[in-house]
């Protein structure tokens, strides 16, 4: 039982917020009840996170997927109206080449590793795009803890109060510079993937034409299908790049800029300006 209790304590300490940990600390109960309560708290936290991920991140991703699907459907529709065969777009080989190029032939591991972070940032982008974000933040700082969403701000301000203003300013400036560097790298990575998608379509086009040259003794229908497939490869890369990846890059850029501005407004508040007022001024600029 003691091992199970220790594991439950670790789980709660890892997942739960400070006030939830305090609640669990406060209730005096048997080991079995503690274990039951700790398990229920962990499950409830996971349930809440899952619900938020579905309702917030899901909406963002669904919008991008829907936009891409509509673009593809539109092209297929025009092709069909013009009398062409939609089947010509079913080219697994070309799609494979483009996807491989997108992942980056030389740095696939690093690129794949950063995508979970980017998707997490996109999930936050949805929360931050709400128009009342700054107002709620300002209200939080004024009323001290009115929303758990911004509880980390109180921590930053508390640390800043205990530190000399010049030092706090220096530390925060360093943090902002580091954040800007990292965010630039992430946006650059997505933009590079967009360029790779274009390059991939060019490679796929060439491969498709080479593939066609090997079938010149076939009927005109077969050759026409192969040439059509090779030409369509360029379209795949453009769709992936422009309809899916470029919107992600621009959204990330806006999100990181917004976060950097917030941090900068906090840094200003160390110099004596009230943080709530700083946020309101920022909100006015932003809107």
């Amino acid at each position: 039982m003691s091992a199970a209790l220790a594991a439950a304590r670790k789980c709660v300490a890892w997942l739960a917020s400070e006030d939830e940990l305090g609640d669990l600390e406060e209730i005096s109960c048997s080991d079995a009840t503690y274990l039951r309560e700790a398990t229920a708290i962990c499950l409830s936290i996971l349930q809440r996170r899952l619900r938020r991920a579905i309702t917030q991140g899901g909406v963002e991703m669904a919008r991008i997927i829907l936009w891409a699907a509509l673009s593809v459907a539109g092209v297929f529709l025009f092709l069909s109206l013009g009398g062409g065969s939609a089947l010509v777009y079913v080219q697994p080989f070309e799609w494979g080449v483009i996807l491989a190029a997108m992942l980056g032939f030389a740095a696939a591991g690093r690129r794949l590793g950063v995508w979970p972070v980017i998707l997490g940032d996109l999930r936050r982008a949805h929360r931050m795009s709400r128009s009342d974000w700054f107002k709620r933040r300002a209200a939080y700082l004024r009323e001290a803890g009115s929303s758990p969403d911004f509880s980390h701000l109180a921590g930053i301000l508390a640390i800043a109060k205990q530190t000399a203003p010049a030092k706090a300013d220096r530390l925060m400036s360093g943090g902002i510079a580091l954040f800007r560097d990292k965010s630039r790298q992430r946006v650059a990575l997505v933009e590079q993937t967009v360029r790779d998608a274009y390059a991939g379509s060019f490679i796929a086009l060439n491969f498709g034409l080479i593939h066609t040259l090997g079938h010149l003794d076939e009927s005109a229908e077969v050759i026409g299908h192969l040439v059509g497939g090779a030409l369509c490869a360029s379209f795949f890369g453009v769709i992936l790049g422009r309809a899916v990846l470029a919107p992600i890059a621009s959204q990330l850029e806006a999100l990181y800029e917004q976060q950097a501005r917030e941090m900068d407004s906090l840094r200003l508040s160390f110099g004596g300006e009230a943080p709530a007022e700083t946020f309101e001024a920022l909100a006015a600029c932003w809107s």
Partner: protein
Amino acid sequence: MGFLEESVMLVVLALGEGAYGVAIRDELSRRTRKDYSLGATYTTLDRLHDKELLTSWLGDPSPERGGRAKRFFKLTDKGRKLLDERIRARQELTQDVTLKGGVLI
């Protein structure tokens, strides 16, 4: 809004300034004569918070909680209005119903 959400809102209203996790769970269990875990209480509180029916703030840290602060809850204006409508609707629905020996007639 389900039964549990409505019950939690009523308990938060009844507890007033002292409505935090453990107190809400204890009062809810006492009034409904049913055991609720802290996890279930948090999930409901979180859902109500997301719907902007409740607001919360952190209190001062206390030694019996290992130096950790309590998160207090209170109803927002939207929450009060909704709860008021629900209570009125329930009163309307039950005004002609009477209990005799614990049985509805």
